[in-house]
């Protein structure tokens, strides 16, 4: 172990950023960033991901706290859905009067 002080970036944990672009839509993953703590992560996210008015709400989550599916489990997780096209709601005629579907 070295005793040298760590540089800010390498010493700061990684955060995943989710941005809601407008009311009514869900938060969408926008990217990730480094920050020393949650407070700064939120502010960095504001500067990095909403500077062109992309958002009305931001979530930041420590990357280490995200539980992700493993590539090894890909077959068991996703392939069984492959031969079930009837789950797509494409077998219905949508009446013209129905809006916002």
């Amino acid at each position, binding site marked *: 172990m070295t005793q040298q*002080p760590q*540089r*800010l970036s390498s010493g*700061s944990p990684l955060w995943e950023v989710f941005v809601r672009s407008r009311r009514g839509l869900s938060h969408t993953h926008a990217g990730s960033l*480094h920050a020393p703590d949650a407070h700064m992560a939120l*502010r*960095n996210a504001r500067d*990095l991901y909403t*500077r062109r008015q992309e958002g009305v709400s931001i979530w930041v989550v420590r990357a280490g706290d995200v539980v992700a599916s493993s590539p090894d489990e890909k077959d068991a997780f996703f392939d069984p859905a492959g031969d079930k096209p009837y789950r797509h709601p494409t077998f219905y005629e949508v009446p013209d009067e129905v809006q916002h579907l």
Partner: protein
Amino acid sequence: MTTTTEVDLDVATYCLRLGDDSLVLAQRLCEWAARSPQLEEDVALMNLALDLLGQARSLLTLAGVREGRGRDEDALAFLRDEPDVVNVQLVELENGDFGRTMARQLLVAAYAVPLWQALCASTDADLAAIAGKAVKEVAYHLDHARSWVVRLGDGTEESRRRVQAGLDEVWPYAVELFELDPLLERLIARGVAADPAALQRVWRVTVEEVLAEATLAVPETSWRPTGGRSGAHTEAFGYLLAELQHLHRSHPGVSW
């Protein structure tokens, strides 16, 4: 064409002062581009600089209109010599390290928040409109500076030492933000300008609160630098102004 009144000239000078403060601090912050401690902070600092530049553009444009001599924002930003630029010396001081830059940001933002809040109620409608936009920007600037000063002050031994040293260096210059002169007195009487005494009270409370949270000492000083408002500047200022103005002066009328 309307005639320029004494009040117009006073407002023009007031806008020049505020505009020059923003312009010069924006230019200083730009020196951090590609040099920040982390990529995220690089973007954050440039965002602050762009806010300040936007304020400067509006203020210099308004100054030019009220002055009535046909000078636009570019003429005022790029074609005035050092003795005609009237920013406070605090904003022209060299950045130093990141701790010192953040210490200055805190002192300036803690002043800018009550300033623009007060100017939202200015009897000058144009100035009030500029204030309406700036007040949201500087609220974020204060939040940003506060976050860093607290983290550096209450951080490692080294970060604490550096931000305290930076604070001690820039602190004396803050008094210039609150100077009162006959021009300001006239504008305050008309409800155009903000009263610096009231700003200083709010500023002091804000700054002391942040420094307490950051476990930093409030510097003690009796030295009162002055002169920025009458065009007297520190040695570092000439270099800043040369870099700011050289493109426009070397290529008159140049545009993107």
